[in-house]
């Protein structure tokens, strides 16, 4: 390493950027010829190869547990044609040359697939050209294999390291040839997480671990009532706590930084926590104090009995269809607020100086944090460095930059580097919850027991309305093109948002985590009304003919009924769906979202107290090409466990403008004993790859509720499931 650094590096870094359509490679500054000996080949910002054969691949996106620090570099390594075990993966910071860098919407693989293949193939192609020039043969007589370029004529070979000097002098090809997917050696195999060893030895660096020597820690007392303000504070006792250095009132200075409060800044975390306990603040609670779950429910109930404020879809004529049918069913479903509670509480570091600023910590949106820092400090964006640590869970919580904005604000005020640390109580109280909602469904069958009408009237505490977006408040709350829309000749969807000061945000599989529960449960209800098997009923609605259905939400513009029917059929077959066994009860659900198709079957039995107990979950998933088989199965498994946990326990309630839950004693989480066995079947597919971080979650609650109905005859229309109320 020291030898490498001694030799001056020619400035040959080629500049690349990704637009929506793909990778653009450009040339760096030209070098003064003959000045230096090259030790590194950097065809673009995604990778570098040293003369010593060292290969570094940069992980561009935030790693929040979805596995992109492993899977995205796998794509580059595949096309670069290197031995996976010989590369080093390094987390990149925010870097415009790498294209969009964020974790959200399960888009990491899907959005980067083409660009990362091209990035790797560019490196390989240039190394092959370099070898061909050296041997004075055509490129077609050379091929790359496991970090070497080989000569087909005589079995001679160069290692990539031997070629870095020559390759660096070449022009970057505009469209390097990509591999034929049948030649993939890395993509589609199981690869272990690149940070596994560090994680199991306690040396992986998460945001909370990234406070530098000598930095202060800030713990903030925020108004417990949503929307409240600080009137005055008394820090006499706080300043007596050993280690407390500063007490400073902070106000929201950037959009999204919603809560003002008083920060206690200390030498260490415990001193800051103790100092905060001793702080006396007088609050102006404002109108938030009137917010309550009861009040929100009252509004939901009112809206259920009225026409929706937004007409989202109106096919045929549902009213006359209901009048003409004698098999009409109506049911009201409810879902509660949910908290994100990633295991790593919110925290962030900021070091704001006169004309520059460095920020780092756990976030899903490093670019957004940079913009917040620019707004708060007035420092130009190019002078704001954003570094990324591992992130101890995201689930949508860290799409918000509030806690990072707090760190920047305090560092800016004090002119000192600080780390903001939230306690779990802060995390739950000041979360942006999964919206609560109520959904009235009504559907009708014709004389052949076919589904002829479907009417949804929904109301939720819209997150788009909460954040003041210009987009329609129904966005990510309900999906007008979602199944069974388009298959039922009379179909209506209406929506009315509830405006509240209770914060809402994106929670793993936003919107779908509610709609898949209600749609896939009510389909089950209609199947029973039709006296048809629930799987057959779904297949009958989808029809025999394969169609591409228009789908205007994320994951569209269409979805394939062929692929949806396929996962349904495979799930029925693998679960022995049609085989009836006494004492074994099954529930089915299938859903399309974010480009992937998932069917799940919950099998349960009744225990000695007649309480349902899950024996097994089967998931059949079609997400196109799978990059990391181990990571994919992890995501599917994790999504199911997480979704089941939410269905079994998840609930935040509001009273007097505050969450009534504040830690894991009141906000219950699924634990090991309740995590069932899970069988996973991934459809072998050559379709373009989709993500997987969210797609196995939303339908599990319906599969579970449908299985409970099969076992007990009790229909679950409100989450979380209260098992004590459903014993058969």
């Amino acid at each position: 390493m020291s030898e490498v650094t001694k030799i001056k590096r020619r400035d040959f870094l080629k500049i690349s950027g990704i637009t929506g359509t793909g990778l653009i490679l450009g040339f760096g500054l030209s070098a003064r010829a003959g000045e230096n000996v090259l030790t590194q080949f950097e065809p673009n910002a995604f990778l570098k190869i040293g003369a010593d054969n060292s290969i570094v691949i940069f992980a561009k996106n935030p790693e929040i547990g979805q596995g992109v620090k492993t899977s995205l570099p796998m794509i580059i390594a595949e096309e670069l044609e290197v031995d996976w075990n010989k590369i080093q993966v390094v987390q990149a910071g925010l870097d415009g040359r790498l294209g969009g860098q964020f974790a959200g919407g399960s888009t990491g693989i899907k959005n980067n697939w083409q660009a990362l293949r091209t990035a790797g193939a560019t490196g390989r192609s240039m190394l092959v050209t370099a070898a061909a020039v050296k041997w004075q043969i055509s490129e077609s007589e050379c091929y790359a294999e496991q970090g070497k370029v080989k000569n087909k004529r005589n079995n001679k070979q160069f290692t990539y390291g031997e070629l870095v000097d020559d390759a660096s002098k070449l022009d970057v090809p505009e469209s390097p040839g990509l591999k034929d997917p049948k030649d993939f050696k890395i993509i589609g195999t199981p690869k272990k997480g690149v940070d596994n060893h560090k994680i199991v030895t306690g040396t992986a660096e998460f945001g909370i671990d990234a406070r530098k020597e000598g930095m202060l820690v800030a713990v903030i007392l925020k108004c417990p009532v949503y929307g409240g303000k600080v009137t005055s504070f008394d820090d006499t006792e706080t300043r007596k706590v050993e280690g407390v250095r500063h007490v400073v009132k902070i106000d929201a200075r950037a959009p999204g930084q919603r809560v003002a409060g008083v920060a206690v800044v200390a030498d260490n975390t415990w001193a800051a926590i103790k100092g905060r306990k001793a702080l006396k603040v007088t609050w102006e609670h404002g109108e938030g104090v009137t917010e309550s779950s009861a009040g929100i429910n009252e509004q939901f109930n009112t809206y259920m009995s009225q026409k929706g404020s937004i007409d989202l879809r109106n096919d045929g004529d549902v009213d006359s269809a209901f009048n003409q049918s004698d098999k009409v069913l109506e049911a009201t479903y409810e879902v509660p607020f949910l908290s994100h509670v990633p295991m790593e509480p919110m925290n962030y570091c900021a070091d704001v100086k006169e004309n520059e600023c460095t920020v780092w910590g756990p976030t899903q949106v490093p670019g957004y944090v940079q913009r917040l820092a620019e707004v708060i400090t007035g420092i130009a964006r190019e002078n704001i460095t954003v570094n990324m640590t591992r992130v101890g869970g995201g689930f949508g919580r860290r799409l918000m930059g509030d806690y990072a904005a707090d760190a920047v604000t305090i560092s800016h005020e004090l002119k000192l580097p600080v780390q903001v640390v939230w306690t779990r109580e802060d995390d739950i109280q000041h979360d942006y919850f999964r919206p609560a909602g109520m959904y009235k469904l009504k559907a009708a069958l014709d004389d052949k027991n076919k589904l002829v009408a479907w009417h949804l009237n929904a109301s939720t505490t819209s997150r788009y309305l909460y954040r003041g977006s210009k987009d329609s408040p129904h966005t990510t709350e309900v999906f007008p093109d979602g199944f069974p829309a388009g298959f039922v000749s009379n179909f209506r969807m209406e929506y009315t948002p509830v405006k509240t000061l209770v914060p809402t945000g994106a929670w793993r599989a936003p919107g779908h985590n509610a709609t898949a529960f209600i749609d896939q449960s009510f389909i089950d209800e209609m199947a029973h009304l039709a006296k048809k098997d629930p799987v057959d009923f779904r297949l009958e609605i989808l029809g025999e003919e394969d169609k591409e259905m228009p789908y205007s939400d994320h994951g569209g513009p269409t979805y394939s009924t062929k692929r949806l029917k396929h996962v349904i059929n495979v799930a029925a077959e693998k679960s022995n769906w049609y085989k009836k066994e006494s004492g074994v009860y099954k529930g089915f659900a299938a859903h399309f979202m974010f480009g992937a198709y998932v069917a799940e079957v919950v099998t349960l039995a009744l225990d000695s107290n007649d309480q349902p107990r899950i024996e097994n979950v089967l998931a059949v998933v079609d997400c196109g090409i799978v990059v990391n088989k181990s990571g994919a199965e992890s995501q599917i498994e994790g999504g199911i466990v997480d979704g089941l946990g939410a269905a079994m326990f998840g609930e935040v309630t509001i009273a007097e403008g505050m969450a009534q839950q504040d830690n894991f004693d009141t906000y219950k989480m699924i634990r090991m004993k309740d995590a069932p066995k899970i069988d996973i079947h991934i459809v072998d597919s050559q379709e373009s790859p989709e993500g997987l971080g969210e797609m196995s979650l939303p339908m599990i609650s319906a599969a579970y509720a449908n299985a409970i109905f099969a076992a007990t005859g009790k229909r679950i229309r409100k989450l979380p499931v209260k098992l004590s109320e459903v014993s058969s």
Partner: protein
Amino acid sequence: MAQFSLNINQHNYKVDVNLDTPLLWVLRDMLGLKGTKFGCGKALCGACTVHLDGNAIRSCSFPVSAVKGKVVTIEGLSENGDHPLQQAWEEIDVPQCGYCQAGQIMSAAALLQRKPKPSEKDIDMAMSGNICRCGTYLRIKKAILAAAEKGGAK
């Protein structure tokens, strides 16, 4: 403030801290042993699990003044990061976000010391104090069983 002598991972440390400081913050903020994580501050999630004389304790709710005995943290579980549980965790590719895993491993290690061949039910019981929001419980259980098979008590 008071002086405490602590034996952690077979090293002796002297710290000068407030009596009520939880062991967690001594480890993380004073001694730089950041493998032990802060999750809830109330002994509800297990992210901060360490061993005190071989027993799993929640260091976030354990005042440093009450520490009488030898402490082992994830950094000291094995000399070369090769405890059978650590190996199984890597092999089975358990971690997702990874934040809770040090605490999970420390709970599992205490279990295997007490019960080298645990049943699935023993594992459910021993691990019930550790939360994983990513939902890695099934792989955790698999890794514990695999480590037990290979003599994970060591």
